[in-house]
C-alpha cells in the first residue's frame, strides 16, 4: 500500500510540469525543492542535537564562491558548486572541530553558529568592491545552457532541484543505515556516556557537520543560479539562518519528510498571502508564521509532520492490534 502511494506521489511530482501548469506554479515548486533540500541538509545535524543557527554562512559561501567564479572567470557553476561546497566544508571543519574539541554544545553551539552566519554576511558586505556589498550582484546571462546551469524554461530547474532534493533525502537514508547514525544517536542522548563507551565523538560530529555544510552550500548555488541574483541578506546572516532552522523545525527535524513538509507549508503560505493580499500583508503572514512557530515549539516540539507521523503510527498499530491480535509486525 505504502509503496504504491509513494510511486503515485512521485509520478505526480514528475508529471507536474508536463500537464501545462503555469510558470508561476513551477516557480513556487522549484523554490520549495531548493529550500527543502537545504532544510533537509540542516536536519542531518539538527536531529542529533547539533542545532545550527548559522547555516546562512554555508549558503552564502557556496553561492558567492560559485557566483563570483562564474562572473569573473566564466567557471561552470557545476564546478563552482564543488569549490563552494568544499570551502563551506572547510569552514565547517574548522568551526566544528573547535566547537566539538572544546565541548561547545546545545544553546552555546546555537549562539556560536548564529554569530558565524552574521560574520559571513558582514564579510560579504565589507568586500563590497567584489561582492557589490548590501546591493548584491546579478549573474551574467548566457541564455539556456546546461554547462552554465541557466535555463529560459523553468521546467529544467524544477527537475534539477527535485533531483537534488531526492539525493538529499537518499543521503539521509544512507546516514540512517550507517554506523554513524548509531554513534550520533548515542552522542545526542548522552555525550559523556557515549565517550566512555569508546564512541569517537569529534569524528562523527565533524563528519555530519561537514555533510550538512556541503549540502547547504550546494543549495545556495542552486538558489543563486535560479534567481540569478545574489544578496548577502537573503543568502547569509541571521535572517536566512533562522529561516532554514524554522522550516526544518516546523515540519519536524527528526523525520525524513519533516523538513520538506515544513518548507512546503511555509513557502505556500507566504506565496498565497503575497499573491492574494499584496506585499503589505506579507508582514502579517510572517507574524502568523512566527506565532505559529512559537506555539508549535511549546505544544508540538516534534514538529507538524513528526507529530502527525507519530499519531498515525500509533493509530495504525492500535487498530491492527485490536482487529487481529495474533498478527505481529
Amino acid at each position, binding site marked *: 500500500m505504502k509503496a504504491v502511494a509513494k510511486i503515485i506521489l512521485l509520478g505526480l511530482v514528475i508529471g507536474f510540469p508536463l500537464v501545462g501548469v503555469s510558470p508561476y506554479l513551477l516557480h513556487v515548486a522549484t523554490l520549495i525543492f531548493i529550500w527543502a533540500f537545504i532544510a533537509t541538509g540542516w536536519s542531518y545535524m539538527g536531529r542529533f542535537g547539533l542545532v545550527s543557527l548559522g547555516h546562512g554562512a554555508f549558503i552564502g559561501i557556496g553561492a558567492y564562491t560559485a557566483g563570483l567564479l562564474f562572473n569573473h572567470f566564466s567557471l561552470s557553476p557545476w564546478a563552482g558548486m564543488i569549490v563552494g561546497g568544499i570551502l563551506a566544508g572547510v569552514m565547517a571543519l574548522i568551526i566544528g572541530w573547535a566547537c566539538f574539541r572544546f565541548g561547545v554544545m546545545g*544553546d552555546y553551539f546555537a549562539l556560536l553558529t548564529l554569530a558565524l552566519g552574521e560574520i559571513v554576511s558582514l564579510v560579504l558586505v565589507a568586500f563590497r568592491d567584489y561582492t557589490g556589498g548590501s546591493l548584491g550582484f546579478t549573474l551574467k546571462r548566457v541564455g539556456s545552457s546546461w554547462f552554465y546551469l541557466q535555463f529560459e524554461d523553468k521546467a529544467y530547474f524544477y527537475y534539477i532541484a527535485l533531483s537534488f532534493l531526492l539525493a538529499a533525502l537518499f543521503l539521509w537514508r544512507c546516514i540512517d543505515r550507517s554506523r554513524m547514525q548509531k554513534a550520533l544517536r548515542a552522542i545526542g542522548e548522552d555525550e559523556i556516556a557515549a565517550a566512555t563507551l569508546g564512541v569517537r565523538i569529534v569524528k562523527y560530529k565533524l563528519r555530519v557537520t561537514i555533510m550538512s555544510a556541503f549540502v547547504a552550500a550546494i543549495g545556495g548555488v542552486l538558489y543563486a543560479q535560479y534567481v540569478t541574483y545574489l544578496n548577502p541578506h537573503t543568502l547569509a546572516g541571521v535572517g536566512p539562518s533562522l529561516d532554514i532552522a524554522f522550516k526544518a523545525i516546523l515540519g519536524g527535524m527528526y523525520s525524513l519528510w519533516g523538513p520538506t513538509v515544513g518548507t512546503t507549508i511555509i513557502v505556500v503560505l507566504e506565496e498565497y498571502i503575497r499573491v492574494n493580499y499584496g506585499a503589505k500583508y506579507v508582514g502579517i503572514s510572517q507574524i502568523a508564521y512566527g506565532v505559529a512557530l512559537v506555539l508549535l515549539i511549546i505544544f508540538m516540539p516534534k514538529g507538524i509532520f513528526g507529530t502527525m507521523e507519530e499519531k498515525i503510527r500509533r493509530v495504525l498499530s492500535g487498530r491492527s492490534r485490536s482487529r487481529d491480535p495474533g498478527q505481529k509486525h
Partner: protein
Amino acid sequence: MEIVFLNALANGILLGGVLALLAFGLNLIFGVVKVIHMAYGQCVMLGMYVIYTLKVIYGVPLLVASAVSVVIMGVWGTLLHLLVIRPLLGAERLNQLLALAGLIVVFENLAHVIWGADLRGVRVDLPIVSLGNVFLKTSNLLAFGGALVVLGILYGVLHKTYVGLAIRAVAQDRECATLMGINPGRIYLLTLTIGGALTGLIAAFFSPIYSVHPHFGGSFTLMAFIIVVLGGMGNLAGGFIGAFIIGVVTSFAAVITSTEVAEIVALTIFILVVLVRPQGLLGARRAR
C-alpha cells in the same frame, strides 16, 4: 591621529554605558529565569517606536513619551512571560531558545506592518560638548549618565531590599529559595517585568541618538549577547566590564576600518570566548 583615537575612546566608553544597561537586562533574565532572551534588542526597537509614535504623531513631550514607553514595555515583558516563557519553563533549553528566536520574526514584522520599513527618528537638537579636542554629543552623554544612574539604582534594589534579596536567592538556588518561602513564579514575573521596563528605558536613551527601523534590534541583541558571554552568563559585574570592553573595541575598530569590520571583530571575540572561556572573564570554571 591621536585626537581621532581619543575621540574613539571617549565615544566607546559612552556607548559602553548604554550597552551595559542592555546587557544588564539580558543578564538578569538569564541569571534568574535561566532563559536566553533572543528578542531582547527587538523589544528595545518596539520601545523606540512607541516613543516615536507618541512624540512625532501625537506631539507628546519626549520625557512623558519615555515614561510611557517604560510602562508599556514593562507590561509587554509581563505578557511575554505569561504567554511564552512560562509555558516553556519545563521545556528543553534549545526549545526555549528557538521559541524566543521565533519572536524575532514576530516583532520585526509587527513593526514592519505598523510603521513600515522607513527610518523613523525623534528629532532632538542638542549641542555638542567639547573637552579640549574631544567632542561628545550631549545625547550620548545623557544616555551614559542615565544608564549609570539606573544601573546604580538596580544594584541598590538587588542588594539592599527584600525583593532584591529574593531575586538573588532564586538566581542562586531556586529550590532552596522556594524552601525559604519565596515564590519563584512571582520572582520570574517580576524579573521579566523589570527586564521589559529596562528595554523601554534603553529605548528612551537610544531615541535621541539613533533612528529606528524594523531590523534595528538585531545588531543590539547580538551586541548584548557578546557582552553577556564575555562577562560570563548571569554575572552582572562581568557584564558591566564587558560592555565597556566591547564599546571601546568596536569604537576603535570602526574608526580604523569600517562599521562592518567593527562588528566582525566583536563577533569574533564572542566566538573565541565561547570556545576558550565559556564561563566568561569573571566566571569561575565549572565542570560541564
